[in-house]
């Protein structure tokens, strides 16, 4: 099986089938032995006014540019432009990121200052210069890659890459003429001239990259990778330590479950009979109102207290008792209507009495000890008193 494969590969490897050439002429390629010859040749070819010709040598020949009458190359300007852009991009990035978008106090230093930005600015400049010089030279100026250039895998090319020098005059030069050109090249002392023909593939314009299949394949792989990475990342980042950004904490947060206790309650009840600091149990719990005469309101009346009382009253009491305490609450009809707080009875109650009711609850009303803190209860009582007074105001209450 594998043997076959290997054999196949070997076979394919050794099959030296060169691509068929069309009969369209690309140009004449002349070979020379010494640098001087090729320089002279190039000079005279250029002198004749040929434009579309080029000289070939295993290594750059000094003076060939002038012999061919070439101008200066533009690579430098190209790279320079990019380099300068890099400088400003870098400064812009640093200034915006640390100076504007997300300001951090770091060592008490200013958010943006030039000196520490210099190294990075320099590096970015260099980076862009280098990349642009290289890619610009290859792609824009030298039109590379052109793997299937007609000159490649010709004997001419084999020679000029190794130890000979050559000149190629393209057929599409307007001065090009089969005989004159050949004569010219002969006159410059070329020891061999051969005709280079285009490859079949040079003439067809179709590029493989826009093949429908190719694009489909790319899209499919994209989707596949997306889905796979989505699942794996979810698994890694949320379920596996230590990659989980400390999401799995060895502690019990509020209202979260704990596997330690069989009932999974992370939040525990205090033990019966214990007394937490500042939470003396309500001593008259479950006792008749008669006993709570002694209880008096510790809070002094003040605007703040009244406002607090109103706030709590509107939150906790008004649903049943109504904002006015007259029993016209929002829950009318869903619950038995509570008696008004302006009745003779309630007005004659001591504060302690009301406190007792709020804390203990009575009839349908449950205890509000859990929801309303002790001070708030007294504040609510003050507010209720003010409500009562407002509802049965006497002349004496009127401002003089």
């Amino acid at each position: 099986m594998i043997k076959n494969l290997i054999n196949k590969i070997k076979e394919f490897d050794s099959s030296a089938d060169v691509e068929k050439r069309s009969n369209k002429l690309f140009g004449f390629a002349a070979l020379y032995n010494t640098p001087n010859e090729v320089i002279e040749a190039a000079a005279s070819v250029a002198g004749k006014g040929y434009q579309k010709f080029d000289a070939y040598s295993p290594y750059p020949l000094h003076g060939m540019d002038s012999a061919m009458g070439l101008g200066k190359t533009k690579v430098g300007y190209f790279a320079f432009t990019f380099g300068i852009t890099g400088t400003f991009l870098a400064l812009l990035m640093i200034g915006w990121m640390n100076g504007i978008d997300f300001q951090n106090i770091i060592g008490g230093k200013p958010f943006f200052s030039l000196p520490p930005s210099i190294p990075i600015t320099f590096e970015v400049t260099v980076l862009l210069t280098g990349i642009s010089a290289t890619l610009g030279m290859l792609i824009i100026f030298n039109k590379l890659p052109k793997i299937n250039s007609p000159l490649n895998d010709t004997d001419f090319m084999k020679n000029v890459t190794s130890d000979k020098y050559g000149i190629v005059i393209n057929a599409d030069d307007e001065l090009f003429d089969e005989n004159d050109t050949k004569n010219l090249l002969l006159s410059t002392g070329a020891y061999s001239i051969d005709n280079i023909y285009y490859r079949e593939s040079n003439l067809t314009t179709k590029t493989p990259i826009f093949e429908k299949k190719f694009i489909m394949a790319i899209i499919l792989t994209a989707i596949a990778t997306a889905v796979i990475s989505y699942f794996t990342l979810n698994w890694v980042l949320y379920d596996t330590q230590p990659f989980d950004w400390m999401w799995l904490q060895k502690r019990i947060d509020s209202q979260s479950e704990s596997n330690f206790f069989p009932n999974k309650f992370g939040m525990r009840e205090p033990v019966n009979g214990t007394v937490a600091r500042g939470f003396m149990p309500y001593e008259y719990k479950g006792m008749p109102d008669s006993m709570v005469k002694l209880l008096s309101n510790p809070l002094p009346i003040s605007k703040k207290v009244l406002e607090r009382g109103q706030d709590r009253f509107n939150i906790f009491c008004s649903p049943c008792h109504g904002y006015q305490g007259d029993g016209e609450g929002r829950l009318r009809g869903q619950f038995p209507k509570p008696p008004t707080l302006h009745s003779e009875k309630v007005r004659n109650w001591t504060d302690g009495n009301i406190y007792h009711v709020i804390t203990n609850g009575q009839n349908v009303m449950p205890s509000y000890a859990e929801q309303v803190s002790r001070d708030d209860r007294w504040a609510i009582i003050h507010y209720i008193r003010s409500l009562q007074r407002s509802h049965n105001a006497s002349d004496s209450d009127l401002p003089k």
Partner: protein
Amino acid sequence: MRLREEREQEIMDKKDTGNILPASSDENQKEPNYWRSFRELYNDPEFIKERNLEFSKDETSPPDTNSLSRLSRRKFLALMSASAAVAAAGCSNYRDKGVLIPYNSKPESVTIGNPTFFASTCDGCSNACGLLIRTIEGRPIKVDGNPDHPVSKGKVCAIAQASVMNLYDPERLKNPVDRTDKGNPKDIAWGELDEKIIGALKSAAAGGKEISIVANSIISPTAKKVLDDFTVTYPTTKIYSYEPYGSETKNSAWAKCYGAGNYPPVQLDKAKIILSLESDFLISDGNKVEAARLFAEGRDVFTGKEFNRLYTVEGNASLTGLNSDYRLILRTDLIEDFVWCLLNEFLIKQRLSVFASDVNITSKLQNYSLEQFISANNLPKEVIGHLVSDLSKNPGTSIVIGGSLLPESTHIAINLLNEVLGSSKLYSKEKNVHQIPISTPSEIDLLISNLKSGKTGVVIHYDTNPVYDFAKEFGYADALKNAPLVITMAHIINESADAGNYVLPLNTMFESWGDFQPRNTFFSTQQPVIAPLYNTRQKEEILLTWAKGNKDAFKADLYHQYLMDNWKATVLSEFKNEAKFNNAWSAALNDGVVMSKSVASDVPMQFKNEAVASLNSRMTKNGDFVLLLTKSSTLGDGKHANNGWLQELSHPVTKVVWDNYAAISTQTSKSLGVDVNDLVKITTSSGELEIPVFIQPGIAEGVIAITSGYGRTVCGVVGKDAGFDSNKLLSKGTKLSPYLNNDVKVEKSSGSYDVITTQDYYPFDEPFYKDIQYEREIIQEGTYLQYKSDPDFLRREIHGEAKEEELEYGSINKQYKHTGVKWGMVIDLNKCTGCSECAAACNVENNIPIVGKDQVKKRRMMQWIRLDRYYSGTPEVPKANFQPMLCQHCDFAPCENVCPVAATTHSTDGINGMAYNRCVGTRYCSNNCPYKVRRFNYFNFRDRFRDGIQLEESYSLMANPEVTVRSRGVMEKCTFCLQRIMDERQVAIQENRMVKGSNVKTACQEACNSNAIYFGDQNDKDSDFYKFNNSNLGYHVLDDVKTKPNVTYIAKLKNVFETEKSEAHN
């Protein structure tokens, strides 16, 4: 198409013919002709054609599939469902956010996310400090002192701080175990157990066999009552009470000198001159919490009170000694002679007090002379001179304190000395109380002999571990083998439990009810803050059930009721009315303490001269070596050995963790030919022990000091085999005292053992290192006299004559200014004693993991506060400085500049913060921190230490939910207890006011026994903190590096006679 054209063509042809009439034929008339239209009627040929071609060609031909869309309906649905499936699967794979479990009915005291506090009492030792336990949603997470407590005044020791870990220790006993068959111990139900044991007890009582209860000192009146009830039911009961590393000799001496009672508390705050003889009262001797506080009150520069002066004469290098102003190094067994010499000085020479005329006493002093003593032991003459004059010049305000390990005779001499100096005024009127007197060695011997002779029927270890605690020469372990029934009550398996038949799991103090009366002036209450986590009971209720004689007597709140009834009868007896009593009881629980009505007796104590007169045995120098067994400040008597936090809390002086060792002086090490970590073999009459050597500067030649509590053989995985069992060297104490022995053989033994310190000291007397801490301005100190003459001397030393504004050095670019709140800390080195309470508290507050001995060895401690200890002088006569070192939250923090990902940055209120989740763990910040206070999670230590015991579920209950649990690869450090600052901010927002600095207390500040740490807002001009922060003794460590720290240290003032700092420290 074409067909239709033809047809039309034909029709046209027809038209041409003109023959459009119906062709009438005869055969057609045979049957009736039903026609539907006239054209049919007339047989219109074109109609006939139309009829034949009802469907035109293109309609009848099958549809052309190629012209249809490729995507069929089926395919479309398939794709849709597939993508839907993918989406669904994808979403199902999102992080599991868990479930919310709210309260069914929220307790009134709990506000979710806010702490609730419970007042309780610590049962870690017999000092019974008051606790204020911080619980969050019903889970205790932190222990602090109860500020209302008259003795501890809101402070507790490291043991109490770390005690939360005892509650959540996964290795706690979870069920009663029947170990009768040693091979396979099996769990047993309480009921069954009670039945069996009650039976055994009854038969034992009937058979006149002794029922021995071995208990620690009982300081709970109600527990005492339980024991009485038990004794009533089982008359043969005998109770043995012992206190490992307690102060028996001190108390017996006291009893001899003053008739009865125990050695009373000392009012250190009133003392001007304190002479400590081998007493480490600042860390481990007596009630450390009280002593440290009172001592520090005498050294507060801000109150303007006169400083006290502390002299120490000791053989061991104790924390107290190294904190003292003058420290004299003297072999421990010479101390008694020294006291006699002083007495001779005061009575014979100065004829100071009435005792001078008592011949019985003076006769004993004849052959002592201070001068000779000084020259014999080449003590610094001038220092002794200061001491003598100080003592005689300050009658009534000077006190001599003897170490608990000194023999009775020495204590008698010391008591006499205090009488002579009139220092007895400083004895507090309140008395230390033991409900049951501590058993004498002879009583213990009786217990053993009863066991041996089979007189004992049942042995009950009442939450004690005598097999480990008792001196081996008692031979308790062997004797126990003869006991038919041994019952051990314990939290974690221990040596005694291992030797017994039944092991009964106990509640921790967080799950128990109780009351305590450590002193006659008050009672303190203990209440559970969480229901028992496991199938455990508290020891009182177990005994109570047995006392009641049937197993069904047990109820959930048995002891709770019993306690209340007892209080109704005794402490709160004046509240007859039910409601009144309930109120008073609740008030007691709320406060945690009730002052007792029986006020301290004011009758002056009469010193009995015959105590001295009849004194015949004396401690005299003998042999080459003196062995001191000192109480460990972290593990106590070894009860807390399984608490990793305590194991990893370094020894305050030597900084050793996870081990004890034989501390010896350099000369001794030379004479023995041993070096650090070499094993030596110590042999006494009571036993022998192989233990590594640690060379401790400042120990007297020939003195060998070993701390207690290590070398537990049967214990949890944390404490097992940590250190060496010093109890092997305990003696009955008949000769000197159990903890002091000068009849010792020491020889070098083969092999060595790694003793690990968190801070190893360099040869600090070599010129290369000499006084490096002063040269680098890490430690600034002066003398008290210097300060009094020139309060600004330090500021001048540091900044020269520069004015405040000149000190504001500029910079090339404008720096960030913190307006508004700016947090800061002040640490008063005059008060700081170097005990590691702050570190212990920080561990608990900030979820700091235990890293284990091997990682400490690699210097990867995680504790956020380091207690730095610096030596100067010579290894023989060293001086020491202590300095808590934590993140300084520098304004110009070097760590922030270098973090590439901006994970550590400054907040606007001046805190240097860590964004844990941004940290990638380049340890650059740590490298660039001049104070090296950053800690890096080199591993997931929770996972690494002891096979990940810290990952047990129970430990996650202990973690402070307000603090992130850091993962591996993350840098961390002190945050100034940011979570507490945030709480204050939240409250401030609710109350619509500015944040107030004084409302925030950091964990270390709360814990500091001597109130040496202040925290607050530096910009709050009219706060106390502002005064501290700008004190003229304040300085910043490494001021030259110009990091502008926000932690200010108050320079230490030595209360010595020199007026120059230089002389003060060399």
